[in-house]
């Protein structure tokens, strides 16, 4: 049975006419790494809030359909019970710092203090999580003195440390450099392999292609495409509908039109593009 189960979910924010999410049907298996792509205003963040229980417990408005995680329905549960199973980290790292703690170590322990984890286990968990995301050297710094990318790592770690079954991430690498992004994707991938279910909203399609198991394209609050990264990210429908497309895909599409790309499927990452182009040129003298 699917760990995340959304059936016919439609949601309207208060004081708005058009729904932010419309007839969403989504089943995610345990340990699956699902990436969500879509243009601005497609409902990506609303989907995250719905999965994490903030719709309907924090944002009012009209929610219809079934939102079920681990067999429990969100409207039958309280938010504080819900967050034990579903962790949420979002884009703006500055606002995710609790403001109640003076060092990164204390900041990471904040969530564990709230849910009553004993002191010894708390320390072990924080140390392990810091090692995992590579922020051990920031332990004694003030969270406010960090750079945007470092703060984003702290925000992600502060959720990982709570060991939720389902991890919902809304653009967790928006302020990171390419090396940081790769590391974070690596961490998330590892968490998925350990059995954590990951739902990640991200614009960086090349990374998604390398790390995710499945991609969902959202448009106007509806699921537009749903499939493997190769299927979804190279679909010609994406570019036509205002989605971000990898530059390797668009280059290969143009090359294909003039006969320079011989393979049937288009590439998403640099490696696939290099491989495809070198095969196309294999017969020629260099």
């Amino acid at each position, binding site marked *: 049975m699917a760990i995340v189960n959304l059936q016919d979910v439609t949601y309207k924010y208060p004081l708005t006419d058009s729904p932010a999410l419309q007839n969403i049907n989504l089943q995610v298996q345990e340990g699956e790494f699902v990436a969500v792509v879509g243009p601005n205003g497609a409902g990506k963040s609303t989907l995250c*809030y719905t999965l*994490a229980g*903030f719709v309907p417990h*924090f944002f009012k408005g009209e929610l219809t359909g079934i939102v079920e995680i681990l067999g429990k329905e969100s409207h039958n549960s309280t*938010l*504080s019970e819900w*967050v*034990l199973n579903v*962790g*949420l*980290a*979002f884009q*703006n790292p*500055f*606002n*995710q*710092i*609790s*403001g*109640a*703690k*003076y060092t990164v*170590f*204390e900041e990471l*322990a*904040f*969530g*564990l*203090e*709230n*849910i*009553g*984890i*004993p*002191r010894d286990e*708390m*320390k072990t968990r924080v140390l392990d999580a810091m090692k995992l995301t590579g922020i051990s050297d920031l332990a004694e710094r*003030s969270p*406010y*003195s960090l750079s945007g990318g470092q703060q984003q790592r702290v*925000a992600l770690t*502060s*959720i990982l440390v*709570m060991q939720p079954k389902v991890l919902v991430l809304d653009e967790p690498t928006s302020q990171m450099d390419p090396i940081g992004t790769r590391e974070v994707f690596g961490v998330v991938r590892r968490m998925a392999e350990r059995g954590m279910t990951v739902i990640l909203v991200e614009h960086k399609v090349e990374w998604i292609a390398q790390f995710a198991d499945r991609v969902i394209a959202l448009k106007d609050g509806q699921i537009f495409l749903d499939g493997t990264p190769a299927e979804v990210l190279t679909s010609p429908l994406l570019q036509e509908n205002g989605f971000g497309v990898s530059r390797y895909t668009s280059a290969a599409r143009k090359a294909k039109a003039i006969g320079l790309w011989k393979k049937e499927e288009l590439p998403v990452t640099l490696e696939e593009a290099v491989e495809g182009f070198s095969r196309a040129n294999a017969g020629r003298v260099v």
Partner: protein
Amino acid sequence: MEKETRLFEPGLFYVQAATLFRRIASLIHTAAARRASLIIHAMHERLSFHIKRNSALHRLNPLTKLTLVLGLVLISFLSPWYWTPHALLLIVIIPLSFVGKVNREFFRAFLRLILPAASFLFFMQAFFQPVGGTVIFKIWFLDITKESLLFAFRNAMRIAVMVSSFTLFLLTTHPSELMSDLTRRGLPGQFAYVIISTLQILPQMQAKAQTIIAAQRSRGLDTQSSFLRRMGSLGPLVGPLVFGSLVEVEERAIAIEARGFTSTQIKTSLYEISDTSLDRTIRWILILLVIITLLLKLWLS
């Protein structure tokens, strides 16, 4: 009728006075702004006045130290004897700053903050307190009496006791230690959060205000000419700050909620804060001393 030539030209005088005043004000303003930015910079990394040292005073339970502060303040205000606040400052608070190994920081704060505040209070009360009695000297229409001087001196000392004991408390107690101890004793977590996050977020707000000012100035907003125009410039500065903060509040609420802030579980604490029998003894002694002072005050008056 011919216009009378006057030595004193009011219009010119006001302009000159205003110019002078503005110069002084801008000097004070720049100095204050520079100092404020230095303090903010230092607070950015530390975010508290706390100085990490290993001393007996640091090791005391935060509540014990808080009781000590309140006890000293109450005794200095309630005591029927004239010299109590002076004595408390000299034989309790100053030696305690040495016990806490924060004497250097304490004296710096004393010179910069406590002494100016207490002197200001002293002069105001000495001049304007209508206490009759032996006139020592007169300045213009103000009579300075022996009684008013004594009265002002004691009040200034009471304020000095209050501010300096609190300074000592802040120097030797980490705010999160205080809050986790108080939360453990039953202070609602939400209340502790409000206190601590306010302390932390103020410097952030200040930094954000600076960014907004720089951004608006780069688009031509006038922040340096006449007073009226500067008042007019407040709108574009305050607007983004306030509305930005409102959006932030929502996101922050989501972020702490996602970390189980309203969880009904019994909260645990990262730090173990000791509360020894010595702590309890000190607290009881202080409470007893306050009660004795109160009774003496009632009995003697």
